[in-house]
């Protein structure tokens, strides 16, 4: 293993500390929700990296597994079974289903050429999207499902009468730390996994599948297990997302916008490192949430100038996100982590 560059370490440490103390450092509903979202996307992007960066499998079905977990939690809660047991059961069922479907896709199609595997995942993901909008009785169709959370997760719940460092000790705080701790546990689990003998074989498959087979590794078995684990973890992230939004719908969990975001996070952060996708997740989520208001500020302050304000009009924020990403991919083809890697 190569040692991490000091700048990279600093970045990772700041991200960790910022997330660990987010409710105290950045109080406010919106910023805490953003921090939750970052935690969730770190898990989602890192689990995708196990497929893309470590094993070299390009799948477009990752959002589908994310949705399995989200709907797994949403379905019982929206039907009035509101409790921790419902959340637990929903997450487990969602994750198990994700692992199963992922393993089935892998077994059926990993033998074919990689490009066809990608096409098959795309087809299955589209099918899931159609099913989610059509099976209205179960999924709520286009409208999705809204639901309430167990009392302990509601903003009105107080576990302490007095605020902690000026932050209300309410259900939102519990919800954030629940998300953050589960995300941390899953991230550490994944780090363990990629550094394990199993993880080394995955990298060997990425590097040279032909040779991995010649050494005696049944690569299809390894790839199938990798995609099952990755899918199950994505489903847990989906469950957390459902709790954060108190809503699950096709556009929030299943759309290809989410898939594009995951790809961007992994590619911008740096494939095959887990810490890269974590940084990428933070960056992409922050860009989504804060670039527009930031541009509004610039727009207002430059109101008297001629062309500039038109360029940074808040409505053009997607243009700038796009430009930013093209530049990053062009100048740091190996992502943020790759740029700091010592050779």
């Amino acid at each position, binding site marked *: 293993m190569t040692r991490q560059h000091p700048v990279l370490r600093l970045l990772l440490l700041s991200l960790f500390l910022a997330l660990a103390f987010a409710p105290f450092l950045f109080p406010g509903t919106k910023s805490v929700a953003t921090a939750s979202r970052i935690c969730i996307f770190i898990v989602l992007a890192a689990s995708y990296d196990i497929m893309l960066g470590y094993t070299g499998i390009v799948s477009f079905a990752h959002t589908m597994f994310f949705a399995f977990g989200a709907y797994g939690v949403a379905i019982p809660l929206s039907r009035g079974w509101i409790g921790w047991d419902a959340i637990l059961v929903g997450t487990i069922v969602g994750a198990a289903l994700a692992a199963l479907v992922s393993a089935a896709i892998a077994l059926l199609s990993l033998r074919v050429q990689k490009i066809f595997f990608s096409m098959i995942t795309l087809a299955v993901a589209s099918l899931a999207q159609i099913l989610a909008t059509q099976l209205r009785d179960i999924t709520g169709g286009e409208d999705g499902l809204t639901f309430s959370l167990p009392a302990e997760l509601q903003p009105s719940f107080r576990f302490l009468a007095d605020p902690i460092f000026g932050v209300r000790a309410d259900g939102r705080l519990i919800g954030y730390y629940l998300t953050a701790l589960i995300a941390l546990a899953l991230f550490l689990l994944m780090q363990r996994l990629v550094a394990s*003998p*199993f993880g*080394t074989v995955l*990298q060997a498959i990425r*590097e040279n599948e*032909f040779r991995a087979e*010649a*050494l005696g590794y*049944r690569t299809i078995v390894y790839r199938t*297990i990798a995609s099952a684990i990755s899918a199950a973890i994505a489903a847990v992230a989906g469950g957390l997302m459902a709790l954060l939004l108190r809503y699950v719908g096709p556009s929030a969990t299943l759309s290809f916008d989410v898939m594009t975001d995951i790809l961007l996070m992994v590619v911008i952060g740096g494939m095959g490192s887990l810490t890269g996708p974590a940084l990428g997740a933070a960056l992409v989520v922050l860009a989504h949430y804060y670039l527009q208001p930031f541009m509004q500020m610039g727009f207002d302050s430059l109101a008297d100038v001629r062309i500039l304000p038109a360029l940074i009009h808040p409505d053009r924020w997607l243009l700038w996100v796009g430009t930013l990403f093209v530049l990053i991919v062009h100048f740091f083809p190996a992502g943020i982590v790759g740029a700091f890697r010592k050779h």
Partner: protein
Amino acid sequence: MTPVLETRYLTIRFGGQVAVDSVSLAFHAGTTTAIVGPNGAGKTTFLNLISGQLRPSAGDVFLRGKRITAMATPARARLGLGRAFQLTNLFPDLTVLENVRLAVQARAGAGLGFFHAADTRTDLTERAQTWLSETRLSARAHNRVTALSHGDQRKLEVAMMLALEPEVFMFDEPTAGMSVDEVPMVLDLIAAIAASRDKTVLLIEHKMDVVRRLADRVVVLHQGALVADGEPAEVVASAIVQEAYLGIRPANG
């Protein structure tokens, strides 16, 4: 005595081209067989058929009397067929130690360990280090493969096969592209394997001095077919080999 490895009428056609043409050979434990022939004679293809990268159009492969023709490459490797490749075939972005440890780990059947760090299996790491020192690569253990010289990559290729501790060693021009001072070390390693009574060595080699030193049997392939089989001295001297391998044709040819 059952041969360790046997091919019967082993044939593969690519389109209309017959690359390996009904080759029947038996290899016994403790022997080292050199496979020689001009470029395109089907030598590497023959090894690919044995190690399973290719499936034959006709004929069979037997390992210790068991038919393995339909078996996939990984299963054959686990049964003891070790293969080193002619064109360097490694895991380029991993370190030298990781490359060898992957082989050690495959041999130990430890690839499905999920929750311990790979480098905490000190037994595997130590074994990998042993093979690196055997091949004089210890100093390079923590370099990525992409940073190695061609000669070192060839040595790593050999180290990985040694680490598999197979019963059948298949070398495909092990010293090609190596600097002159590295060649004796690799040849000594092969000679040490060849000297053991229970190992079987197949060696594709162009250099006749290497063949004479290591092999106790030489088989000649020409246009996919077996054209000579015998002791090194007699095979090298025979007219058919002169034609097939050295390109000396009879006057009317």
